[in-house]
């Protein structure tokens, strides 16, 4: 508790921005995916930080666990998304023989 909430939030924000940078600038599709995972993690940190500093003290229901449940769901979704994303990358690789995102530009006018 001694660590103020704002410290956690700033670290999460930093992690998010780094993940954003990775998602925007990596050429490899898997690199982009890794950036996305970083962003999801930062979100989880935010959620749990708020849970600990606010909900635990102020929740009305006996078990104040919505923060943790939310975080679990986020992890679940991240897993699912990682699986599907990698499946997509493999499918694209089979079709186009490349994992570089900039080569997948069939939507270009």
């Amino acid at each position, binding site marked *: 508790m001694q660590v103020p909430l704002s410290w956690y939030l700033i670290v999460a924000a930093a992690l998010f921005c780094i993940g*954003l940078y990775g*998602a*925007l*600038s990596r050429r490899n599709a898997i690199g*982009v995916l890794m950036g996305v995972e970083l962003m999801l993690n930062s979100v989880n940190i935010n959620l749990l930080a708020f849970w600990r500093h606010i909900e635990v003290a102020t929740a009305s229901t006996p078990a104040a666990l919505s923060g943790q449940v939310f975080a679990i769901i986020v992890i679940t979704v991240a897993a699912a998304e990682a699986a599907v994303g990698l499946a997509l990358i493999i499918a694209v690789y089979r079709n186009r023989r490349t994992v570089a*995102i*900039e080569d*997948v*530009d*069939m*939507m*270009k*006018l």
Partner: protein
Amino acid sequence: MSEFFFNLVWLLPLFPLAAFAIIVLWTNRNRLLSTWIAWIGIGLAWILGWIILFLSWANFEELTPPVHGHPVPLYSIPTGSLQLTLGFQVDTLTALMLLMVPFVCLMIFIYSKGYMNYGTENVDPRYSRFFAYISLFACGMLGLVVSDNFVTLLVFWEIMGLCSYLLIGFWFDKSYPDPKRITPKEAGLKAFLTTRIGDVIMLAGILLLYSQTGTLTFTQVFSEETLHHLATTYAFPGMPWATLIALLIFGGAVGKSSQFPLHVWLPDAMEGPTPVSALIHAATMVSAGVYLVARSFPIFVAVPGGLQLSVVAFIGAFTALFASTIAVAQNDIKRVLAYSTISQLGYMIAALGVGAYVAAVFHLITHAFFKALLFMGSGSVIHGVEHGHHHVHHGHSDTDHSDGDFDPNDMMNMGGLLKRMPRTGWTFIIGALALTGIFPWAGFWSKDEILAEAWHGFQHGGEFGVTMGWAFFVWLFLTLAAFLTAFYTGRQIFLTFAGQPRTEAAKHAPESVPSMTWPLIILALFATFLGLFGTPWANQFFTLIGEKAEVVGEHLPHGEFNLLIAGVSTAVALAGWFLGWLIYGRKPLTEPVDPLEKPLGPVYTLLKNKYYFDEIYQKFIINPTISLGRVCATFDRRVVDGIVNAVGTFGRWLSSWLRKAIDNPIVDGAVNGVGWITAQAGEFMRATQTGNVQNYILVAAVTVVLLLFLFLIRA
């Protein structure tokens, strides 16, 4: 009861018109049916006509012209503020015409069956059409005589003109090797156009009449007030309206009745079939002109001593003598009769010109009968000679009508036919006796009455202001014409029937079939006995149309019997016959050469060529008109068409210029410009669609950051 029949008078023209329609529409292929339809049409008209005639005779007091009649108004034409009522009427002049018209038509219709060779292998290929045409013509003539106004009179007048054209040119495919000889097609056209000149003049007269009186119904036009008005108002100084109108209407009579100078069409109209010549150009249509003047007589006498009667008298008398001189030198049997007709019509016109109204109508009626008889007789002769010709030249194929060398009409090819064709011959001779005015045949009575009236006018001053001078002139010319009439008629008889046949064809000419000879016989009876109705001692004609008629307040002259004049005219006629016998009958011709040719020399040539009138007209009237037409055509082609084409070319040039100057740069430019702008915008926009997902996310991220900063700054 007479009312009942008088009210049916409109049926008279309708019966033959229905026959025409039925033949044209349905029975054209069936010759026998067409014949009977035509006969029934005219037959019904004849029966009804004679019923009306006898009823009128019984009631003549109420029906005398010009103002009294039994009107049958049928239709009013609204023409603005004035009304024209069309209809029919029965008066005694009409009734008198109905004595002659339907009956003579019926005789000729019966005769036509044989003439058009029904039932033989030479039957005319357009047989039914002939009967349709003559039925239509009968409708026209009947309609003319029962009209009660100038409008329907004009309509039926024109119908007759049309039928005349169609019937003269009935054998329109006939041609001759001699180019100078007129073909039926040309003759029909000539007839139509010549009478047209007269018709136009007449139309002008009728229109002026309408403009001055506001009506065209006979009873209204011929009323005292109207006539007085016409006589006293002037078209221009010295010319009262009545005189002008009368002269113009007379123009129509000059055309239709073939008087000088519009006489040129009638001789050439002989190219038509002989029944046509008998019907139209002897009995009915040509007498329509005389009827017209008789009907309009009140206008002619409205101005006493006026110009109009003098003109009428002069033209009539001149034509009578002029035509008879030409007849002397003609070899075509029908042309002799044609000129004879012109001459006799001149008699009638001249009679009207000296005020002998009753005599003129009397002569019209009798002339119709014996002239029709003569024409039909000549047709019978021509038929016989033709048959004789075919009989002799049996091997010839005769698919067309023309046989260049042999003319069956030429009297020089005849001779001795009295023995071969007795019925035709004797009836022809009876007709000739009537024509030349030998006592007691019909022509004597009617011709003599005219001469007596003329002489009376000379002696006592003419009726209706006709001067003594004119009366004498008329009497002299008509008497001379009577001499010549007898001469050329005798010549015709002797050349045709006396002596020996001069050709093989004449030698083998058979008598004609009964359907042709019976009408001849019946008409011969009329020619013999009809005159007795008009003798000066019991003149039925005068009773019918003369006695009660009040023409501009004066009574018509009652013909007295003048023994001197009768004697003179008989002597003159006998002299003519004698001269004819002397030259042609005593030693009948054996060679086809006219004995008069040498002695008369150039005179003979002049007469034979009809005083070269046709050539004069051609050179001075027809050719200039045609040249004028050509000039107009050239003008039309060059100038008018040039202008039209120029407008078209200009239009094309204008549209081309518009296309280059406006449509292409501006309109197309605008349209293309829009497209270009869209394409450029598209190109510009396309840059954002890189297809690279990371670009899209970057844009989103940058946008979020910017928004964030925006909110931060505002807060």
